[in-house]
């Protein structure tokens, strides 16, 4: 089991630090004083903060994410999560210079975590003082990667997409590569995924979860699960300390897109109940929307949450 006390302390620490203030240098934050006030109020109620940042400029003409915008979106998210006006200061509350950092990415083609997100995260690890040789980005090789093998900190980043067997490809699911027998976690639509987060190889190491929502896929067709028709330009990133809370918001958005596209309630099938299980059974975080303080920054139209 996870050391719950330690986890709660970590979360409380972030809540305590969430004395949010505006960051004048970022266009994303202009006019968001209300959100900030709301955040402060909610923090005092000890809700779990999740930040959704959207920016229509994040995709270039070819649909590729722009590195500079991604970096800015991440910085904004971290400022809100940590309560630090200076984003770099915020990153430094997450990561210490002596940390050895594994950035767990997702290489699924054609909608992966993206180089822009990977390199932005790496850049901010280095901004926090981590040596480049102590940073590694990996997906399927995490069990054998020398940096990951001695990692003291993990950053978890992946896109959310509908999934044939687990309902959605989630942040929780992204850690399935930390076990040598992923196939043994497929029963009941991957309901046991939360258990992986209690294993020593990852337990208490995750400092940040980033759900990439630039172009989420909301419906699967074909053997590789990729259906260009069912990809939605959402221009978003969701960040949080609690992976369950971030996944919960991600699912709400995916479900909203499905309902909009199909013109009716169309439940994800199979249901992504591994997220709820991660809360109820494995106590990894909260899947209760009433316990999540969603901070929305930037482009609002069609946010579905």
């Amino acid at each position, binding site marked *: 089991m996870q050391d719950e006390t330690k986890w709660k302390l970590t979360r409380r620490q972030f809540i305590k630090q969430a004395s949010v203030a505006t960051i004048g240098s970022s266009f994303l934050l202009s006019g968001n004083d209300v959100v900030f006030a709301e955040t402060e109020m909610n923090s005092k109620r000890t809700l779990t903060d999740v930040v959704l940042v959207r920016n229509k400029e994040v995709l270039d003409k070819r649909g590729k994410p722009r590195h500079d915008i991604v970096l800015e979106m991440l910085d904004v998210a971290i400022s809100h999560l940590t309560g630090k006006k200076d984003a770099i200061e915020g990153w430094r509350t997450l990561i210490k210079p002596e940390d050895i950092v594994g950035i767990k990415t997702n290489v699924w083609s054609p909608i992966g975590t993206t180089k822009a997100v990977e390199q932005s995260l790496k850049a901010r690890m280095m901004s926090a003082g981590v040596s480049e040789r102590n940073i590694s980005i990996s997906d399927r090789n995490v069990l054998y990667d020398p940096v990951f093998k001695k990692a003291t900190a993990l950053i978890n980043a992946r896109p959310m997409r509908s999934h044939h067997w687990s309902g959605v490809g989630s942040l929780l699911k992204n850690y399935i590569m930390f076990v040598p027998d992923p196939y043994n976690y497929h029963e009941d639509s991957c309901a046991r995924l939360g258990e992986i987060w209690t294993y020593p190889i990852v337990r208490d190491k995750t400092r940040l979860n980033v759900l990439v929502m630039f172009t989420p896929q909301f419906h699967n067709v074909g053997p590789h699960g990729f259906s260009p028709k069912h990809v939605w330009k959402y221009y978003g990133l969701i960040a949080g300390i609690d992976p369950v809370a971030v996944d919960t918001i991600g699912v709400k958005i995916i479900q909203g897109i499905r309902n909009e596209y199909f013109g009716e309630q169309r*439940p994800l099938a199979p*249901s992504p109940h591994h997220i709820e299980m991660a809360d109820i059974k494995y106590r990894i975080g909260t899947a209760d929307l009433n316990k999540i303080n969603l901070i929305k920054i930037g482009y609002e139209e069609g946010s579905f949450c």
Partner: protein
Amino acid sequence: MRSREKTLNLIILSVMLAALTGKLAMGNDSTSRLESLVHGLPETIEEWHKSPDFSVYDADNLYIYINGGAELYISYKFINLISQPYVNLEDDEIKIDIFDMGSPYNAYGIFSHSRETIDDFVGSNIESEYAGGLLTFWKGRYYVSILAYPETESRKLTVQKLARNIAEQIQEESVKPPLVALLPEENLQPHSVRYFRHYTWMNMYHFFSNKNLLNIDHQTEVVMAKYTVDTGKPAVLIVLDYLDEATAVAAQDTFKRNFMAGVQDEYTHDADQLWTACVRDKDLLVIVADAPSLETAQRLVQGVK
């Protein structure tokens, strides 16, 4: 309620079981047939060259090729897959995947699993779905996917030629499961028909439960579809064919207890005045959900042939 050719089905099942007893031999036959299909494809087509390296997978290693999606195919009794890429000078790829699903029923099932439209992209007698660079179709025991992404008009034509080549090589008839023919045709949304033998897919159009409350196993055939009604939300009709009457009785009791507040009647409605039905005839169970009136629910049940 219907006149089924149960005996014929049992004969077909027996033949299939007999074939399964010679699994190794059948696997080899399956592989040979798949290899024959890709050998029949042209070496070059337009700007595309057939790669000399094709790959063959079975149920034990499919997860290597379809990261996270193998269980779907295994739930439909998948036997073998052959993957044949075409490449051009820019290193772009057209990916051809041909699945031997063991029977036309399973090929139909996997095709129907997630399609949203039915078109005649491959030919007038072939059910297919093309959108955004992804083509899927089924013929005989084979389910075929061709992905050429990003889509261009030229690639679309190449995909069509390749698909027609494959379809012409497959001589086997495309026989749908007899259960599908039980669905009433009036107001049926043809693209919505789903056929499966795994409980996970029950929640496709209406969420019932994450648990297998209806005891659906590989010996239970299920067909479901949506029906256009006067109100916006379509009604859902589900027909389950159990191995024996006792299992059907148990499933009906469980369904009534969990989803019809334990009422004795075969029809009931919820607070939103949406009607649910659960009617049994021997080993056949018919369920209706989201019907806007009692009459609609009755009409759907009585329409099952």
